[in-house]
């Protein structure tokens, strides 16, 4: 069943949804990356919640003029307008009052959403009996999606993607360093608004499939997951698009393969799956890699400190240092250094003295900056340079292990 779904063989409607969800995932992932890198991920939450009053007002206007209240284009235009008003309110609050952005986001999202709920109940009391479709915008409803709806989503998604590609450079510049961008003559405020406009477009396009509460997930989770795999912004953008697209496609397919699997939540959970794998297993930024790195580093620090203490006949109190030294065979169980330990300790102490000379000498300035208490001096200086330093120190030559 799942295989049929994955190969788009579950019928017309399921195929439409899968194609639409994939396109939506790609454009949300790509657009969301800029938002995430600008550290404003949750702005999307305000934008998406602010669509609700617009949807309701558009419905009321459509009905008042005798049209079909469920006309998707009409509803999407309404949602875009009210999301834009919400966005302007939020920007105004952060620029002209003392509110921080998080408070402005929360205020706009709760107030607009609350007002939307008021309008929803007004529509219910109007007794038109055709409002059922509107609740679908909260969580998305792909049942009975029409060809025309899919077309709107496809065109909207593709258009957003094209726009992102056109203004990606200034957006990245602003996300990385807004002050530098301003100095370069980039209109930072306008680029920010354009970025938000694109987020709004993705939100509006995604209302039908995942709904306004969960569209935020598609804008945030794929970029966050992608960030773990690359330090290059252009790759993060591509990866986020890929993750978003795959989540959309897989989510839609899984949702079509069995009853009671709503499309929106499944897509979100699939993207979270990608995120979970990324945060745990990514090679450099992943948790597993970081834990291993930290343990290795801690071990180096403790051994080095222990060796220096041993070389100066100081007592070592740190239990971890003692344990590590014993395990490395540098210290006997009774606390007396082994021969290997003695040799390494002497070498460590001599290296410290060498570093001292290097750091006091202006001709070695670039090398001195590399000092971190751990680096072996052989990795930064040639044997000739080390010999020269040893001549300055004088005294006995190092004991070779």
């Amino acid at each position: 069943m799942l295989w049929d779904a994955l190969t788009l063989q579950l019928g017309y409607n399921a195929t439409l949804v899968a194609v639409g969800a994939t396109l939506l995932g790609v454009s949300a992932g790509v657009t969301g990356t800029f938002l995430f890198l600008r550290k404003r991920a949750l702005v999307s939450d305000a934008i998406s919640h602010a669509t609700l009053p617009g949807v309701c007002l558009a419905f009321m206007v459509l009905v008042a003029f005798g049209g079909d209240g469920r006309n998707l284009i009409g509803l999407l235009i309404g949602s875009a307008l009210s999301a834009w008003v919400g966005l302007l309110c939020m920007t105004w609050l952060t620029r002209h009052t003392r509110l921080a952005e998080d408070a402005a986001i929360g205020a706009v999202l709760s107030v607009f959403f609350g007002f939307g709920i008021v309008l929803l109940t007004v529509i219910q009391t109007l007794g038109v009996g055709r409002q059922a479709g509107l609740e679908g915008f909260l969580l998305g409803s792909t049942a009975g999606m029409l060809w025309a709806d899919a077309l709107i989503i496809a065109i909207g998604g593709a258009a957003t993607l094209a726009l992102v590609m056109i203004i990606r450079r200034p957006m990245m510049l602003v996300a990385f360093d807004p002050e530098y961008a301003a100095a370069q003559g980039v209109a930072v405020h306008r680029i920010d608004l354009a970025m938000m406009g694109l987020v709004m477009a993705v939100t509006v396009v995604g209302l039908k499939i995942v709904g306004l509460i969960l569209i935020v997930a598609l804008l945030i989770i794929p970029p966050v997951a992608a960030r773990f795999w690359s330090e290059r912004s252009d790759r993060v953008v591509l990866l986020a698009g890929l993750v978003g697209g795959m989540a959309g496609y897989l989510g839609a397919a899984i949702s079509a393969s069995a009853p009671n699997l709503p499309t929106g939540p499944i897509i979100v959970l699939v993207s979270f799956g990608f995120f979970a794998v990324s945060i745990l297993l990514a090679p450099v930024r992943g948790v597993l890699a970081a834990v291993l790195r930290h343990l290795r580093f801690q071990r180096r620090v403790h051994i080095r400190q222990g060796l220096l203490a041993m070389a100066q006949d100081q007592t070592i109190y740190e239990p971890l240092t003692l344990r590590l030294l014993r395990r490395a065979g540098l210290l006997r169980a009774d606390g007396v250094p082994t021969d290997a330990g003695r040799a390494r300790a002497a070498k460590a102490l001599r290296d410290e003295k060498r570093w001292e000379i290097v750091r006091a000498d202006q001709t070695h300035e670039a090398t001195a900056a590399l000092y971190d208490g751990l680096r072996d001096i052989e990795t930064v200086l040639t044997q000739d340079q080390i010999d020269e330093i040893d001549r300055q120190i004088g005294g006995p030559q190092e004991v070779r292990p």
Partner: protein
Amino acid sequence: MLDLVSDRGVTVEEPQPENSPLAVRGLTVSYGQKPAVFSVDMTVQLGALTAIIGPNGAGKSTLLKAALGIVKPLSGHVTVFGQALEDQRARIAYVPQRASVDWDFPTRVIDVVLMGLSRQLGLLGRIRARHMARAMDCLNRVGMRDFSDRQIGQLSGGQQQRVFLARALAQDADLYLLDEPFAGVDAATEKAIIGVLKSLKQAGKTVVVVHHDLATVTDYFDNVFLINTRKVAEGPVAQAFNAETLQATYGGRLATAQIDQISRALG
């Protein structure tokens, strides 16, 4: 061989750690993969004005923060008046670097100073007239009495710095730790602050200051602690603060001309 290479930096007249207001042993702190402070020992002398000196990024503030338990060290331990830090908190007052508070916070100057009395007040103790008087007195000592009703963000940088010093004074501690109190302040503030620090010393208190202006070290301080990730030297200014130790601390980063100038000033 051991007397050939002194690894831990020059220490002149090693004071006894048991009596020291602040003693640090084998302290290593790292942010990420590079230690900011590596295996440092420090013994602060009771009743002295001590400057912690070193180039940018040499771990001066980190040393102070780790000694106070604000950042977690990778290894090493700290004693305050010979005991564990937690038991002696009431005897320490700390003045942070300017950037670390929320300047937009709804609070007046006098409220900030009253925060210094919070250990004395406990959780629910009422602020009485004598607490108020004490806070005003502390403000007076830093010359900020007339600003007590202002919101903290409405003051200039130097004035803010003085308010935080007043808060530390209100704590009535035995050990005062100040992180770059003179950074970016006006001359009037610098004068006010150093005046207060010297009066603290006269009252038998111990003061440790992270400092960056080499030109004023001899005027302001009794002792210096030179650090560049490792400890370089520690002791009375007259002995531990000289061209050699400065060269070792700053390396190529300090112009030779500057060092010459300072050595001339030192005589």
